[in-house]
């Protein structure tokens, strides 16, 4: 029953394959993560486009789960795209930095994911498409032990999987 996680991974692999087969070979990301020259031709309805161009995550302050203005702006864009692309089910994944106890950070990750879910629903995304999960401090994206990394790890990520609600 790892299906959901696996589906997401497989989905991203399929998207990556169809991109290259579809002749968008120049659309790879630059080393700094910015868009390559051919990327504009990418399928704007793909989860890759969502991740790379719409932006799939928002960040939080230390031990907080409320959304700041930057996060709300990012989620407005996410919400519009999600409404335009109803074919995806959505998992909001909450994370914490390593400066907390394991159980508390797991709980905090859920609260962060919930904040995002509630905001997206308020912006018109169907709640039936949304689920939350938390990884607490178990899956950092950055591994250093200073604020530069912690700030990026305190996040909620919007993960898309194909399927109807």
């Amino acid at each position, binding site marked *: 029953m790892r299906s959901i996680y696996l589906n997401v991974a497989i989905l991203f692999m399929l998207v990556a394959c169809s991109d290259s087969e579809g002749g968008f070979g120049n659309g790879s990301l630059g080393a700094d993560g910015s868009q390559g020259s051919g990327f504009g031709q990418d399928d704007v309805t793909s989860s890759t486009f969502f991740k790379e161009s719409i932006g799939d995550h928002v960040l939080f302050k230390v031990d907080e789960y409320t959304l700041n203005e930057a996060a709300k702006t990012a989620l407005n864009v996410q919400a519009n795209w999600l409404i335009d692309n109803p074919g995806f089910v959505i998992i909001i994944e909450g994370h914490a930095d390593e400066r907390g*106890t394991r159980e*508390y950070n*797991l709980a905090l990750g859920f609260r962060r994911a919930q904040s995002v879910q509630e905001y997206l629903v308020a912006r018109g995304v169907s709640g039936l498409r949304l689920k939350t999960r938390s990884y*607490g401090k178990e*899956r*950092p994206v950055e*591994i250093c032990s200073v604020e530069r990394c912690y700030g990026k790890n305190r996040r909620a990520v919007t993960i898309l999987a194909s399927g109807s609600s």
Partner: protein
Amino acid sequence: MKRLFSFSFLVFSCLAGAALTQDGPLKIEITDGVIEPLSFAVPVFEAENPAAREIAAEISSIVVADLTSSGLFREIPKNRFIAQRKTFEEPVRFPDWRAVNAQALVTAAVKTSGSGQLTVKFRIFDIFSGVQLGKGTQLSGSTGAARRMAHQVADQVYKRITGEGAYFDSRIVFVSESGPKDKRLKRLAIMDSDGEKMKFLTGNDNIVLAPRISSDGKKVLYTSWETGFPQIYLLDVETGRRKRVNTPGNDVAFSPRFSPNNKRIVFSYERRGNIDIYLMELSSLRSARLTSSPFIDTAPSFSPDGRKIVFESDRSGTQQLYTLPVSGGTPKRISFGNGRYGTPVWSPRGDLIAFTKQSNGRFGIGVMRIDGTEERLLSASFLDEGPTWSPNGRVIMFSRQTRGPSGAPSIYSVDITGRNLRPLNLRAPASDPSWGPVLP
């Protein structure tokens, strides 16, 4: 796992000191915070047959390592011994041991049989009083049980001299970690209390966290992302079989712990971003909600009588500790110091609560009385967390993670007075220890 051996404790009459079996004054008071460890001598255990020589040496070195690891005992180096003992039965020449300042002496003899039977007999002496402590004891089992028998000898010595319960012959469930920090692989494993005989209990295809061993040592509760979401699993230590625990609504749940009789569990249940504590009967799966606050209530742990839990909540604004009767009521806050308090664990003796404390950017392990008084910190580092109690309530193990991109956790132990902080000697990163009972 089939039973490899059986133990029989046989008390055999002591030939040399039959009249001298009363207890002497040799005693360590653990709660005093032992500054000077008690000095003890352990001549290499006598091999009663040539084939037993190797195993006798192994057992005596494990006994010495166990006792030394407690921080309460200091070994007198064997090259300082004056007395050269030939046989187990020869009388102890107390002046020879006094001369090297040994306070205690452990003598033993080991015998093996062709069929793989192993017998260990031993005696403990109080050197300054010139008496044997208690009667001689004999253990028998299979040669495969040599390590366990060594731990049992150490436990007998420890019990006799400290008056406390045993703990060396016990096992610890923990999370064995590998791989880089952002793609860490985690799997459950079990080991002896000294870190030896490690065995994996799960594969590493899913994240697993915070295993909690039952009071009979047979089952383990833990949290796994096997379905993609954190949920609670119950694992049988002997068979390795696991099953998901059907928490209410088959929803997300984590941070489980057994009740003292292992019939009930407490855990955190997540619904719409709110985390509350539930109690569930394992046989009927009937559950009851213990907290209903719009805050994070997590990390519950039962009192040894099963009547109360201690848990952490951020209802006051920061993580603090609360106790609550299992029958219901209003949580009572017990932590009031500077900083944040999490992962409380009730001592098996019922007298103390161990916790993780965050203050001034550091994490430490501490203990307080169950009403929150007499708080004291036992450790502090970049990241210490997740205490677990030895079966006798005198030693605490916890995870310590180092800083930076290559930062990794390891398991440390410390006694309840804050002395004898030491890492377990493990071959791989390890976290989230849960200390099981003394083995039957």
